[in-house]
């Protein structure tokens, strides 16, 4: 069972206290967007073997959504961070890159 530190309340939360929310940093496309943009926004998701940026909600705790950078193979959690961001923090990206030199990076 995974464990994440909620960046809002600081609790080390068991997976059973959390609700998963899929890929993080998805840009919303509303009216005016092309079919391709809308399809990609609604349905296309990354499924990397390795570093994944994802959303979790501390549903049985403080109720806040947060983001996590997690390795889908080793299950290592590089960091959890605020959900109120459009992209992962720069310092986190370089820390992950330092640990995984072959990692292609976030985009």
């Amino acid at each position, binding site marked *: 069972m995974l464990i994440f530190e909620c960046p809002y309340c600081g609790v080390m939360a068991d*997976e059973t206290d959390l609700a998963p929310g899929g890929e993080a940093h998805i840009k919303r*496309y*509303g009216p005016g967007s092309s*079919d391709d943009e*809308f399809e990609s926004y*609604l349905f296309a998701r990354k499924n990397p073997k390795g570093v994944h940026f994802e959303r979790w909600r501390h*549903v049985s705790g403080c109720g806040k959504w947060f983001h996590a950078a997690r390795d889908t193979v*080793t*299950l*290592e959690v590089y960091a959890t961070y605020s959900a109120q961001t459009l992209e992962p923090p720069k310092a986190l990206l370089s820390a992950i890159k330092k640990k995984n030199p072959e990692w292609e990076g976030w985009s």
Partner: protein
Amino acid sequence: MSTRLADHGRLIDRTKPLQFQFNGKHLKGYEGDTLASALLGAGQLLVGRSFKYHRPRGIMASGAEEPNALVNMGQGSRFEPNQRTTTTELFDGLYATSQNHWPSLEFDVGVINNYVARFLPAGFYYKTFMAPRAAWKHLFEPIVRQSAGLGKVPTDKDVDSYEHYYAHVDVLVVGGGVAGLTAARAAGASGARVLVLEQTAHWGGRAPVDGGDIDGMGPDEWVKSTVEQLEKMENVTLLRRTMGAGVYDHGYALGYERIADHTPGDGRPRHRLWRIRAQQIVTATGAIERPLSFAGNDIPGVMLASALRDYVVNWGVSPGDRTVVVTNNDDAYRTALTLKAAGLDVPLIVDARPGVTSALAQAARDAGIRVAEGKAVAKVHGGKRVTGVSIAAQAGEGASLEEVKCDAVAMSGGWSPVVHLWSHCGGKLNWDAQNAFFRPDPSRPPTGAQGQAYVVTAGSASGALALADVLADADKAGKAAGKAAGGKAGRKAAPKADAEETQKMEPVWIMPQGAGPAKRMKMWLDFQNDVKVSDVQLAAREGYESVEHTKRYTTLGMATDQGKLSNINGLAVLSNALDQEIPSTGTTTFRPPYTPISFGAIAGEARGALFQPIRKTPMHDWHEEAGAYWEPVGHWRRAYCYPKPGETHEEAVNREVINTRESLGLLDASTLGKLVVKGPDAGRFLDMMYTNMMSNLAVGKCRYGLMCSENGFLSDDGVVARIDEDTWLCHTTTGGADRIHAHMEEWLQTEWWDWQVYVANVTEQFAQVAVVGPNARKVLEKLGGMDVSKDALAFMQWADGQLGGFDARVYRISFSGELSFEIAIPASQGRAFWDALLEAGEEFGVMPYGTEALHIMRAEKGFIMIGDETDGTVIPQDLGLNWAISKKKEDFLGKRAQLRTHMQDPDRWKLVGLETLDGTVIPDGAYAVGEGTNENGQKNVIGRVTSTYYSPTLKRGIAMGLIKHGPDRMGEVVGFPTIDGTGTVVKAKIVDPVFYDTNGEKQNV
């Protein structure tokens, strides 16, 4: 004949005899016995029948790896099948029966399978599917069903209780043998909080049986003194009868404590599931001896050499008077020496190795035991009991060189470390060719949340077999775990034992190595599932090259065995058949639990009323007393109807509808979701949430709104009230409150986090009562207080005030089409208000109505119900709700999705009313069929019923449905075939969905 010895038995107390029953026979054992040792002590070697061929099976092992001796335990509400006799502690009055036989254990008709075994090869079950269909139905299915499964399924409710415990520790040590104790002591000395689990009732593991000196003490004495030291350490917790069941991600582990299995009915919980978070996990899980594959190795009396030794030393039980030992390694000589020392006869040690010169072999020879080198057991004689063995050259094909009479065979094919817990969460293994086993690779451990290793193996589980190596390895593991968990590295030296001189074991996968097909068909690899050497070889010939496929095709290592006994031998046979090395074949996946754990332990306290707590409205008790027939709605219970004595549910529902339409009805609407949305940006936010405009709703007014998912589909509906300049109250469906609250939070937190809006779920803060019917206003006026006249409170308005002395918020909204007030009262006042309404309404013949009357009345009005008219594929436009979709708003959730071509398709099924021609009710879920057939020859479907009821108001069947081009086909008749087998087609006319009071005059008075 197995029997109780006059001496030996370090675990039993001969002054405390216990009575028990097996298959109706009254037998005697002693305190400290396992059921297996007691059965053997009482002369009962035959304990079961095998799964497929119903061959007689005896006890083979002495611990968790036992494949055969599974029994039905207990009776009635304490009955449980498939209980392992070797891990069941004996208690007075124990009641057990053998399983998988008919009519009796001694005489089993199913053994016929044994004689037709050549027709029941590997994959038999799968092959039956290739036969003609009729053969499966009439021939194979009855056979397979009859023979499937081991024990019987319990029929009575379990009377025992179970519980969960949570533990957070620095170091978890699994295993209380000398390795586990050594590791625990080393980890404990570092200051770390340590939890030690031992699956049996005794500390020390195998060491007291196998002997040796630890720090100058005998193993028993060392164990006692070490446990005493550990008990004195405040940071160390010791648990016996607790198995480490599984290791999971990020240092999570499960412990399975069998508190009261041996003291049933003493009031304690039977099992306790320990849910453990550990920084570090030390697996000191020991090793398991492997069987050897020779013909007849499943006949009762053939046992693992170490188990035979355990029975003599631990429980003073002799499985046989005359035991032939067959081995490929030194360890089995200990069994020969133990038996000899106990005064039992060991006519021969058959060693597959040529030239055996080790110290243990010399000791055996000195004790007068003959050692046959380079030899094999060609065949075991006997049926329900071993009577002798044929000896042949291991290098040959099995020509008998010598016949030896015996009544037991002790076999040892070497040892395999118990790597299960190491492997559960990704720890990798290396093949150790020297010892012919897989051992954990410390450089590829399971890794935790920070990428750190969190499992370390100790002792035999690491692959260390000699006592001195076990202790050194365990001490290292304990120190490392303590340090990794943040403790201080201890400097105390590891316990010491003398090094032993041993001779290398020799891998032997088939005995003799050149054995022909007839012999290979009698060499068991998996005793529990009846998988033989010939089955695995057949699977390889049939193309099952992957070990995982072979496992499933042959059932090798399935069920409770999980590879404990069968794994390595099976892999080796498969590898030989495929002409490849064992590491290339690899091993099957080890999955938790290590041995089966009870469903009760998994459920814990979550049973009965606690399984899923029921949500109750403030008026719940009144409904209960009024004899409500309950309907579950989400986690709530709502009254479906209130039947009077002698009344059917249908009659009650019709009465409730008529009474409400003609006079006065009350509905407990407290379960309706109530979300307060507040803040400077609340209006803007609700404009995104709802398809229609909410920001321009005037204070004091109500508006019906629709919510869609971003994918465009209708997700919830309800009436929204504007409370003040920056506050709205949103009603949701009963089942939707939590979901819609979460939906709003998600968008606020993750998309529009700069908008100033708060959402609070106040559903349970208010009781809500719908007062409905032509006399609704009169009853409120009788209660007195606020002005509820049409002028003061028009339709779709709300007002705060007092009614009969209660603080009330009154919404003039209607889900029935009648004059209707929905009144919200603080929850604590809900029941009192309900009672006041009933009293005041008596003169109008007030009656409460349930959810079914609510459904019928809304259907008569053509109002949709989320979950009936919607199913996650329906958009508001399908339901004729275009009027509730804003054309002015640039954006709302679902708007972009509804612009997609498929959503605009004129062929989408659309909502209409349906009136049966003969007045009957269309069956629930019926489909409408059109002209022609599809490519499968089925009639083309052109729509379906979404709501269908008998309308007591109109005295006929009415329905709503989604029909292709429906709104353009008013007056046409469509057919709904029934599925009752009569071929009846219900014909219905397409009409407007509003059946009652089309102009809405009644609700607007």
